[in-house]
């Protein structure tokens, strides 16, 4: 986790959100379960504790009600995606072509095609998954 945080800090172009509020996390997790989506995994929450949402070169890591119009809310993004209502999946980011999601069943981070929802890549750790979606 430290590596990805350091890497993001070093990229001048990356727009990094301010750390997330704990209250917001509880509300978000509640809303996700209400909408029949999976909950946010712990290591992703750790990332949000450093940067609540990231935007870099057209790619995005969603945040929990983040400040600033550039960023996108996880709950909203999940509702907008065709993966809304999937109890095993929570969408955490995206680029022009793919979603970054977490699958609670396989306990992996997945790169999923936006259109046909095919799983293109699977990562057991958060770092390569975030790197993949942000292309860093």
């Amino acid at each position, binding site marked *: 986790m430290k590596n990805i945080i350091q890497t993001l800090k070093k*990229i*001048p*172009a*990356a*727009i990094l959100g301010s750390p997330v509020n704990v209250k917001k996390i509880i509300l978000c997790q509640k*809303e996700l379960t*209400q*909408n029949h989506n999976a909950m946010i995994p712990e290591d992703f929450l750790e990332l949000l504790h450093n940067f609540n949402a990231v*935007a*870099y*070169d*057209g790619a995005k890591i969603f945040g929990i009600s983040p400040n600033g*119009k*550039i960023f*996108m*809310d996880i*709950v*909203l993004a999940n*509702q*907008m995606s*065709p993966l809304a209502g999937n109890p095993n999946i929570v969408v955490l980011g995206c680029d*022009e*072509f793919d979603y970054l999601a977490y699958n609670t069943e396989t306990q992996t981070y997945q790169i999923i*095609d*936006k*259109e*046909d929802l*095919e*799983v*293109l*890549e*699977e990562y057991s750790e958060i770092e*390569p998954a975030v*790197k*993949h979606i942000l*292309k860093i």
Partner: protein
Amino acid sequence: MVKKRIEKLEDAFPDFFDEEENSLDQILDNITFQKSQEEHNRLSPESALQHVDDFYEEKISETCEDILLLEKNTTTLIQADIENLYKGSFVRDYAKRYQTTEKEAKERLRAELSHQLQTLGMNCIDKKHYALPREIKHIIRMDFYGTIDKIDEKLDSKSAKKLSSIYLNRDPRKTKDLKPSDYDLKKSHTWMIYRQFRSFRLLERNLPEILIHAGISPENFAHLNAYDISQVLYNHYIHKSKPDAEKDERANLFLGAKYRFVKAFIRRNKTAFKHIMDLRGVDTRYTDALIKNMEQYGITSGFDMVEKNYSAEILSVLKKYKLVPEDTPIGAPIKEEQISKIKEAGLIGLILARDENGNPVTGPELNVHHKIAVQDSGEKTNFAEVNQFKNLCLIIEPYHFFAHALDRTQNINGAERYVSRIEINENIAFFGGFNKIFQVECDFGRPHYNEYDHEILDQIHQKDSANNKNLSDTSDKISRKQKKKEKLQQQKQIEQALNNSKPQKIKKHKKKTDETPKPAQHTDTESKKMQGLSRRIDKLAHKKDEYNKIRAELIEKRKQYLSLRAAKKSAIKTISQFEDDEKFERFIQYTIKMQEKQR
């Protein structure tokens, strides 16, 4: 004289003397107080206010600030509507209020939002969906970003399944003795799709050598899939792009379509873009830096907005860390070498340009948007069209978010799939707001690349290399002039070959589209052109004759003038010699006498 001048002025400006009557104050009074004072008094206070509002609505045009404010308000409202549409609690409340089902409520909200966006120039349309094969999407991605992702070749990994057994069982020992000419790239259907993209076409020349090195025989190459070829390219280019990063997941291949588009856009629309950014209230320092980066690298973010000169505060800190020489004066420019040093030391925040409130200067996030989404491009036969400039658009956030807000895929009649997409005008190259003053239309016209006939080019290059070899053998004997002549001839040959190849391409294209080529018409137009040219040449020759005649006349007239001028000068001289009339009289008498004597 003065009178005449005034008369002239009066004629030219008949209202000149009525200036007092039409003074600026009076004009304004006429506009603002159109109704008489009596009528004005009759109006009630409310109606008077209404009257003033109407006047302002009618008479005063919107200022830039008004437009920006309106734009910001509209975006806030749209953003809120989108959030509500996807917020379960809001939809449930809406359904309760209007006594409908949640599904219907959502559809209603969606329709309202769609209508709103339509009035603002973003049309949401339903159309049939043509899915793209996964392999082609993979190629489109690579062309868009200009990079190739590594595929994990470990047999148990998920991505290794994409690779074919032919690729996995490759053997470099078997291809050791092969030559590049042994490979017929046209035999690979996959590579024919790859080469639809200009960037991959440019790599084609080196491909046979890469294949030999990778251990893929010409027979096997024909059966490789898109992932196999991308992995071959990845293995070759990872060492070139990042020699020290063996573990790197991504290899740089070429400048992606995304970045090429940004470069092409800013080259054509620099001033318009700058104006829009100014209108949007973006800091000019940011705009300048943004434009510079767009021009140089095709990037719209990822650059440091650094102060141009050292302030006393900056210098004191930097001198502490010995990052600048001790004698650096206040106000000295911050050089790029020093910026990189400061960056390495982790003190970049110190020299970042800041606004009035002390916050680092930032600007809007710009993204490159596919007008026709990659997912919906399955009906295209030339897949390179997806990433062509006419299908791309530079868009500011949150408008990019709006453009995808109503994306939806739905199944109708079982197998048929339809999608909802927001469409942006095909000529728009920059979308900086709903108001048209924030948009830039740019017709990139023909495709951004020229298709060269590689066969002809290869033949020419082969000839060139052969000629060069011959030349190098006898280089000592051939003079410089001869070498130059030969070079010129070669260049002419290439130009001729290229010129010949272009019309061939057009003919080929015509055959594909029209099915009925018309060579007779082509020759007619050529003969007409020739006739027109000959007429023009005749006319020019005639004009040249006329010009020569006039020139000769003028020369003669000048000669006459010069002789007359000389005679006048001599006469003046002789007259001036005789200041007195008596002397002049004597001189005349003397000359007469002399003439008589002569007789």
